[in-house]
């Protein structure tokens, strides 16, 4: 028999979206064309699910960070693609006697491909936790949680954003499991080159207009930081004060938000990267003027895409409401799939899921009437 030649174009793949909301977790699955979608759930009904992710190293495994209005924070994990869940035996918690308490686990990130059981969790208030047993038990990363400068970097546990200060955007360099970045609201972006034993601020060039010193070494408010998986020296961030790009080993961020239209501005929560092209990114602007309404500017939601690393931006609003739509998109609630023509998805504060199967050129509402969406992750 003649050898079969491998296809050069990836076959169409179904997309699964994990939708974490203020009242539970839903799953939205597509057909291969990504035209037809089916919603299942809820799971953890009544739980505030801040983040739910599929393990990129083994897509049968999922983690979900949850709490309820009454009950403390925990982590649930599944090894059968979400059919059954088991609670962590030791969820992220600060050390007894430290005086600090985890209000909620906010951000979940899989560890390096060479460390299949490793996960990281970022919490509110700012804490970094690590699991080496696929999320069953978690211990604090002492190099961050006990760092003598941590309080100076982050401020007090009561300071920070409206839902509590957060450690988010835990990024692992695909070339080196010991090379990590984190983002903190507030605190800024920090880097570790020794697996979290020590950390250094990486905030030069980023504005902090809410500080007396507009260019401090730390204390910034990155909303979402992303590292490109195929060009890991390139990072982007959507910040409280603009949009930025950095190409390491440079240590100064470039302001790429200045190229956004003045009527829209450079403020927003999420930042989404094309899975293969490091120059293509998407943001979802919100109104950060005067009293910070945190809604779509003018009630006209729009995605903005750059295909040249942020030099220029194009509005992508075809199919989105043209007026009187006063929702926005939280920092974890926008994502992209891996399809040959990338699908981009976001969930809104008003409980809608929108999707584009053509890289943002046109949009369709996939689901309505969910609770406030906190996170959308594609798998």
């Amino acid at each position, binding site marked *: 028999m003649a050898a079969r030649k491998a296809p050069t174009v990836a076959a169409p793949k179904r997309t699964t979206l994990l939708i974490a909301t203020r009242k539970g977790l839903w799953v939205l699955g597509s057909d291969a064309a990504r035209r037809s979608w089916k919603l299942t759930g809820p799971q953890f009904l009544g739980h505030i699910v801040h983040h739910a992710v599929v393990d990129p190293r083994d897509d049968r495994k999922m983690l979900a960070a949850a709490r*309820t209005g*009454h*009950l403390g924070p925990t982590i649930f994990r599944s090894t059968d693609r979400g059919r059954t869940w088991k609670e962590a035996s030791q969820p992220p918690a600060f050390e007894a006697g430290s005086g600090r308490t985890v209000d909620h686990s906010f951000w979940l990130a899989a560890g390096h491909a060479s460390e299949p059981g490793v996960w990281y969790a970022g919490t509110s208030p700012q804490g970094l936790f690590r699991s080496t047993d696929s999320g069953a038990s978690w211990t604090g990363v002492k190099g961050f949680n006990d760092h003598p400068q941590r309080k100076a970097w982050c401020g007090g546990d009561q300071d920070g954003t409206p839902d509590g200060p957060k450690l988010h955007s835990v990024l692992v360099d695909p070339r080196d499991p010991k090379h990590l970045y984190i983002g903190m609201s507030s605190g800024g972006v920090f880097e570790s080159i020794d697996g979290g034993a020590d950390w250094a601020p990486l905030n030069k060039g980023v504005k902090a207009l809410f500080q007396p010193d507009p260019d401090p070494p730390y204390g910034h408010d990155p909303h979402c930081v992303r590292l490109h998986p195929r060009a890991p020296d390139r990072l982007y961030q959507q910040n409280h004060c603009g949009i930025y790009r950095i190409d390491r080993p440079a240590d100064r961020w470039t302001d790429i938000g200045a190229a956004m239209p003045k009527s829209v501005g450079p403020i927003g929560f999420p930042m989404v990267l094309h899975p293969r092209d490091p120059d293509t990114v998407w943001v979802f602007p919100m109104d950060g003027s005067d009293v910070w309404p945190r809604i779509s500017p003018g009630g006209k939601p729009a995605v903005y895409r750059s295909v040249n690393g942020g030099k220029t931006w194009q509005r992508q609003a075809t199919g989105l409401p043209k007026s009187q739509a006063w929702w926005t998109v939280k920092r974890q609630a926008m994502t992209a799939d891996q399809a040959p023509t990338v699908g981009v998805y976001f969930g809104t504060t008003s409980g809608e899921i929108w999707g584009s199967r053509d890289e943002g050129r046109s949009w369709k509402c996939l689901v309505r009437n969910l609770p406030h969406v906190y996170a959308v992750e594609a798998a």
Partner: protein
Amino acid sequence: MKVLIPGLLRSYTAGVDTVVLPDHVTLDAALRDLNARYPGLRFRVVDEQDAIRPHIKMFVDGELARRLDTQLAGSAELMIVGALSGG
């Protein structure tokens, strides 16, 4: 002693609403015993600094207990409830 389990914790007790434990001297000891039987339950209602979580109330024989070192008398009744808050 008897522990009345609220609906929001019955996923831990397989739906059981009343658990009978041996008598304990303190609220802390009773909760640790409960956690040994239903792993994970304690951390949902008591934080890592041994404080009862803000939206949880515990009543011992009808009296609000604010601390884990609250003494239990004989065969006390512990009632755990979700406070009128929580969102």
